[in-house]
């Protein structure tokens, strides 16, 4: 498991107050009871940790831990290409 995956899993484990070893890339949000408030919180923590901004439309499509890790990898790669971080989206209305 690479560094991004380990960091994402650590964030999720802390947010859900469960052991990191209980989480894998295949773990679904449903399996570890991640609700809409958890999702907002975890997204924020991931954005802060990797200095990225998760687009609004991507938030709704995240279903597994692997989705989060792949999304982070893509956003980090895009950032290194563009050299800048896009503004963070609003996540509540």
């Amino acid at each position: 498991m690479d560094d991004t995956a380990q960091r994402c899993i650590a964030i999720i484990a802390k947010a859900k107050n469960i052991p990191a070893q209980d989480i894998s890339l295949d773990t679904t949000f449903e399996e570890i009871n991640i609700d809409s408030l958890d999702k907002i919180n975890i997204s924020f923590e991931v954005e802060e940790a990797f200095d990225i901004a998760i687009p609004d439309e991507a938030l709704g499509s995240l279903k597994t831990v692997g989705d989060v890790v792949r999304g982070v990898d893509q956003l980090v790669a895009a950032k290194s290409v563009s050299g800048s971080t896009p503004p963070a989206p609003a996540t509540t209305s």
Partner: protein
Amino acid sequence: MNRVVITGLGCVTPIGSTVADFRESLFAGTTGISPITGVPDAPDGNPGVRYTQAAQIFDFDPAQHLESGIATATNRNAQFAIVAARQAAQQAKLLEYHRPGDIAIMMGCACGGRSTEESEVKNLYLRNARAHPLTIVRTMSSSGASNISIDLGITGPTLDISTACASATHAMGLAFHMVRSGMATAAIAGGHEAPLSWGFYRAWDSMRVVSTTRCKPFAADRDGMTLGEGAAMLIFETLESAQARNAPIFAEIVGFGMSADANHITQPQAEGAAMAMRKALDDAGASPDEVGYISAHGTGTQANDATESAAIHQVFGERASKIPISSTKALHGHSIGASGALEALATTLGLQEGRMPQNGDIVNPDPSLDLDVIIGEPRTTGPTLALSNSLAFGGLNAVIALRSWR
């Protein structure tokens, strides 16, 4: 109009996070006031103020009570509120007998999510950091009321009242009137507060009203209040519904009065407090001669205790010096918007037991106040009528009248 009784109690306080523990501490005179420690963001957890004591809650772990999403979306005050409301609703079997849309939730909270607000503002000012996306819902004062509604599935009238130190008593009084009038068949009424943040400690320090020793209500050497935190909840319902299902009845709530001093933002005035007490008695259809106990606002400041005493003398005349009185703030501190609920809880337990709580461990009441302060041990009163006073900064006064149920 309906008669209204109390059929459930719940609390998270510095002297107990269950009603059983609160009751034990209350009648034993065990204080929850202790050295201030672990203030978030403050150097070494020390707020750097002239006083050293506060009534803090050390045994509360939100993870033991709340799903992670709710814990993340709430400040400590709303977490207290959810847990205390669950206790009260469970004891009263509230949702087994009342329809969710017929239950009101009336909460007092003046400070909202104070610690979250300070933490987020610090991050903004120091690091130009983004705010956590749940900052708004953590900090809004109505968060406690909303989260109780969500947690228990209650869909009736749900409000937060913010009148500084009288918030919870205003909330309980209005809940009482809603059940009495038939607008609701039952209510969860009370207050919650968790304001003990670095900035809060410092702001109170600057006001010079916090005791450098500890809160000593009505004592000759009183020198101020002691800040606190906590939540207390009472279930009000019609006597008819309580009797129909043989619910245990702790006490009856019979009157509510409120007033404004229209005088000064920090200096209380006796006339306003007296008016609120008279209105509570009028609302109860009771005579001043029936009052056998007063749960005082009793902050332990020179100004409050002298003014409240003067108000009591205005209302009760010669009887003022013969009515047993105490302030339980000597035990649980002053939890601002929640304090009236903690004191109503204490009064309700006193009425249930027929003995009223002592004024902490104060042994030297101020003779110039000429009051019958309960010293040493709880005072056996038998069945009686009690007033519970809340007198807030800004001159906002609220008083409820409670009667023993026998």
